[in-house]
């Protein structure tokens, strides 16, 4: 079943044989659906209907027309041909009163909507046919609402919203549509007719006074209730204030003072975990000078014990705890945490930790799968630690933060937020090893590979854990590759069950996955990783490139229409609005990802080019190949190299903007470090060398003096640049000084860049050797014959030999460095370390646990990198011309 196009052939043959078979024809229809042959589906549907006049077959055909409209490049054709034809087909059935099923009415609605015939659509929905729309709750009302908005029939929109709110005063979407319609009507100066109904949906409440009255009536109902009131009307009041204020309407004051109203809201709902997300959206209604007052007023209402020995007053039950927690979250959202100085922040952390540990007693009976009531204190304290670290650069804060989160996880082993933040922190500190277990305990699967897979793939490779990196890419790739097959099957099912509106949705979904940024990234990185780990070691570069089906001429990444499916807000943040990830930052992050992906993809293609050039078809074979329609490849190395240079320039320009992302938002890409380490330019130089050597190969030896000089110079500069990168790796990854642990993850990242660059240089060297070897041989032959010295070429050959010798000594140097780091890391006595700040023994143990994980991870990275380098060094030894 991997060749669905063959299935269509099969059923085409079958219906030719048995032209009246309903079964074969319907299989044929589905086979076309699988491959998206909409035109043929339309015909197959009609043929079926003629054989067996069942409605579904007729409407399959209609839907296939709609799909032709959706997929048509020419939108005019959709509007003037496909959709009108579909409409007429349905109208015919309507006239003949043959409409049977809800799905048929749905499809009719879909067609009219896509044609922009909203008036007609409204008639259908509100008319007799609309009575069939029963499966989905409020199906007719929702459709009417959407049509009123399209038609800008604000009176109807207004009246219907109010009607629905009277029925369910908690349905947020209808407050929004009510307020939208209200202000449109005011702007239009709408007046109710002097007599009769306001509009077909009934009473319109079109003045600010009526709106205020409407909201207040809803509130009065809630206030009068014996049971706990609904939140909707209370938040609607704040929403209305915000909208009135934005328009400069003085009437907003009639609804009350936002501070007072939010205070009341807290009194009513402060013990619900969602209180923070409810109020967060309206905090901008408070003026800055009222922030402290607001928090103090809330705090006064929280029932807390007398202050304990440490001066912290504690809640007596979970409801009080939740209220207190909400105040803490609101303080943070108002920026009050950020405003504290270092001492203030440290004191805040102390209090939050005290609340956290105290609150654990309420959750003693919690199952492993449940969260602790006080978990969010722990997370808040961690955020303050991160603030302190960002402000002061004091790494102790990060260590304590790691320790606190480890402690949190020990009490609440399924808290995803703890795990996510630990993942982020470990990665930022250069340790990938602990991330593997943390991520796997999140049990992220399937579509989550696309949305949060970046947490794994961003750092695995850059921190030198190539095996784990490869595996992470594989997880994601497996998901993406199954997408195509999976979705096709359900497009067919949607036809079968008449879920017509789902068909374009499924197709858009499939395309969203195919165009995923993460997909393109893991595809590229996976191939690069394979090459780093294997090419010219266990097997030749050519074989590797061939087996992965890499075609260097081809750019199959949908650059212009890439979908960023990353869930960049998966980490909870209570930061103030101006510190949250903005749309602009989001788009910068995508830009940066695309730039880096382009660098990587071009690097990959350039490496692929080396493989292709290494065994150009021999003249005779080339002729044969040309006969078979395969033309000799044009020079691709240079254009790709030009593109890489341009991309690197664009990258440098991007970095000049100095874009910063919130800590809990997206991580920056490797771009900045790659450029700073010098590895990109070194790789460019290596490919440049390959281009010179290719030139040398193509020209007659006598005319190559210039290029020979360029080659010799390149050999020398390559060694110098590699040495420079290596120098940027020197230093201690982890150092203990005066009771403090210091990390330098950049050194590790630079080492990885060095290793990657060495791989590229290795492949280029092999390519050079492959060209130079026969040249040298033929030259020696000529020399013997003509006995004439061609001294200039000697420069290239001796240059190559000096170059490989230089590489050898660089390898020894880097291996010595790695060995040295391994020794000193192993010798570090973390156990004996007395952590400078006085912290309880329990806390110290968690910090040390984190330190140990970091050390172990560094050691593993060093070992992996060392092993790879050793293998390359061995192979390089035998590289001779």
């Amino acid at each position, binding site marked *: 079943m991997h060749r669905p196009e063959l299935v269509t052939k099969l059923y085409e043959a079958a219906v030719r044989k048995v032209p009246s078979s309903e079964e074969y024809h319907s299989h044929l229809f589905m086979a076309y659906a699988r491959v998206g042959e909409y035109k043929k589906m339309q015909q197959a549907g009609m043929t079926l209907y003629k054989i067996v006049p069942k409605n579904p077959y007729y409407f399959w055909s209609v839907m296939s027309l709609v799909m032709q409209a959706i997929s048509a490049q020419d939108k005019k054709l959709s509007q003037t041909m496909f959709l009108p034809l579909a409409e007429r087909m349905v109208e015919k059935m309507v006239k003949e009163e043959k409409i049977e099923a809800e799905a048929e009415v749905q499809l009719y609605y879909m067609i009219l909507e896509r044609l922009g015939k909203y008036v007609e659509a409204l008639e259908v929905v509100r008319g007799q046919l609309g009575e069939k729309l*029963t*499966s*989905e*709750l409020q199906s007719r009302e*929702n459709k009417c609402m959407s049509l009123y908005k399209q038609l800008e029939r604000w009176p109807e929109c207004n009246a219907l919203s109010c009607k629905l709110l009277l029925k369910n005063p*908690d*349905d*947020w*979407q209808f407050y929004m549509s009510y307020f939208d319609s209200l202000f449109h009507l005011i702007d239009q100066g709408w007046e109710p007719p002097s007599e009769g109904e306001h509009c077909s949906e009934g009473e319109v409440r079109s003045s600010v006074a009526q709106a205020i009255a409407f909201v207040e009536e809803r509130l009065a109902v809630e206030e009068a209730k014996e*049971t*706990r*009131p*609904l*939140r*909707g009307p209370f*938040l609607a009041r704040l*929403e209305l204030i915000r909208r009135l204020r934005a328009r400069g309407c003085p009437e907003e004051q009639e609804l009350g003072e936002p501070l007072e109203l939010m205070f009341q809201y807290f009194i009513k*709902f402060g013990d*619900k*975990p*969602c209180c923070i997300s*409810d109020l*967060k*959206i309206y905090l901008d209604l408070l003026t800055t000078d009222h922030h402290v007052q607001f928090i103090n007023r809330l705090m006064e209402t929280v029932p807390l014990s007398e202050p304990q020995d440490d001066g912290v007053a504690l809640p007596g039950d979970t409801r009080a705890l939740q209220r207190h927690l909400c105040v803490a979250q609101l303080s943070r959202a108002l920026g009050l945490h950020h405003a504290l100085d270092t001492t203030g922040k440290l004191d805040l952390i102390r209090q939050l930790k005290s609340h956290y540990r105290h609150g654990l007693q309420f959750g003693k009976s919690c199952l*492993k*799968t*449940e*969260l602790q009531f006080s978990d969010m204190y722990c997370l808040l304290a961690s955020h303050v630690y991160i603030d302190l670290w960002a402000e002061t650069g004091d790494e102790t804060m990060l260590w304590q933060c790691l320790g606190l989160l480890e402690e949190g996880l020990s009490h609440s082993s*399924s808290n*995803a937020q703890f795990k996510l933040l630990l993942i982020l922190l470990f990665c930022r500190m250069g340790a990938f090893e602990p991330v593997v277990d943390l991520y796997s305990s*999140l*049990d*992220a*699967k*399937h*579509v*989550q590979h*696309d*949305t949060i897979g970046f947490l794994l793939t961003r750092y695995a490779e850059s921190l030198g854990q190539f095996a784990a990196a490869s595996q992470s890419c594989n997880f994601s790739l497996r998901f993406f590759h199954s*997408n195509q097959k*999976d*979705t096709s*099957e*359900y*497009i067919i*099912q*949607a036809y*079968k*069950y008449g*879920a017509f*509106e*789902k068909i374009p*949705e*499924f197709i*858009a*979904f499939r395309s*969203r996955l195919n165009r995923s940024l993460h997909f393109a990234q893991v595809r590229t990185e996976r191939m690069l990783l394979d090459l780093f780990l294997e090419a010219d070691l266990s097997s030749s570069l050519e074989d590797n490139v061939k087996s992965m089906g890499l075609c260097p001429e081809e750019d199959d990444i949908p650059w212009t229409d890439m979908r960023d*499916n990353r*869930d960049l807000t*998966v980490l909870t943040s209570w930061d103030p609005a101006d510190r949250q990830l903005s749309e602009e930052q989001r788009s910068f992050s995508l830009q940066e990802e695309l730039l880096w992906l382009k660098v990587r993809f071009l690097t990959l293609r350039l490496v692929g080019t080396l493989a292709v050039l290494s065994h150009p078809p021999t003249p005779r074979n080339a002729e044969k190949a040309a006969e078979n329609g395969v033309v000799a490849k044009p020079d691709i190395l240079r254009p790709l190299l030009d593109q890489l240079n341009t991309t690197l320039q664009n990258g440098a320009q991007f970095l000049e903007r100095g874009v910063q992302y919130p800590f809990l938002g997206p991580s920056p890409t490797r771009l900045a470090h790659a450029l700073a380490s010098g590895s990109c330019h070194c790789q460019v130089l290596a490919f440049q060398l390959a281009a010179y050597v290719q030139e040398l190969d193509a020209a007659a030896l006598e005319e190559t003096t210039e290029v020979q000089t360029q080659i010799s110079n390149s050999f020398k500069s390559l060694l110098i640049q590699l040495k420079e990168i290596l120098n940027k790796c020197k230093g201690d990854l982890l150092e203990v000084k005066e009771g403090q642990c210091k990390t330098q993850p950049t050194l590790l990242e630079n080492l990885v860049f060095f290793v990657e660059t060495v791989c590229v240089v290795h492949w280029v060297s092999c390519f050079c050797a492959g060209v130079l070897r026969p040249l040298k041989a033929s030259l020696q032959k000529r020399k013997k014959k003509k006995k004439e010295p061609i001294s200039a070429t000697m420069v290239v050959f001796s240059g190559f030999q000096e170059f490989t010798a230089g590489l050898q000594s660089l390898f020894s140097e880097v291996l010595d460095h790695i060995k040295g780091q391994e020794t000193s890391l192993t010798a570090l006595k973390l156990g004996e370390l007395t952590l400078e700040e006085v912290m309880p023994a329990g806390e110290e143990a968690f910090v040390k646990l984190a330190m140990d994980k970091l050390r172990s991870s560094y050691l593993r990275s060093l070992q992996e990198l060392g092993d790879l380098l050793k293998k390359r060094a061995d192979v390089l030894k035998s590289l001779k011309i």
Partner: protein
Amino acid sequence: MRVPLPFLHECTVKMTTLRAFTCDDLFKFNNINLDPLTETYGIPFYLQYLAHWPEYFIVAEAPGGELMGYIMGKAEGSVAREEWHGHVTALSVAPEFRRLGLAAKLMELLEEISERKGGFFVDLFVRVSNQVAVNMYKQLGYSVYRTVIEYYSASNGEPDEDAYDMRKALSRDTEKKSIIPLPHPVRPEDIE
């Protein structure tokens, strides 16, 4: 059927936008699905439900745009044998939006849809150990119809777990015949 809902206090505090679940929601449901008791299924599973029972797949969205929770269900069984019913396949609410009665609201919607379809009852499976969920369903009017032995297969060497098949009769089952408990537990292969 997994329900990570700890408590069911008031069933009235929702304030939500309820709407049909769409494919794009799959990219936004991490805050719900990173819960240890909420399974993230393969794409085919979701698409199957969306293609066959789109009306039974409902998501709740908060005013801030976050997804709060969702319910996924289906209608199945023979009408002739009076086994036509609504089934709850998944119900989950993000930690932040728990204790609002949202799960109860979503269940109510599923029951209403099943009523409209002329179902005799609504049923669901729940781990016998998930006492919180079992109690919640009891509060919502569900009772244990039968125990299914080793319904949940465990991965990491732990023993397989039994499930309760819980049911609530709908108005069509006037005599509430569908919920009379079976005297003996059944094996997974015996259920349809």
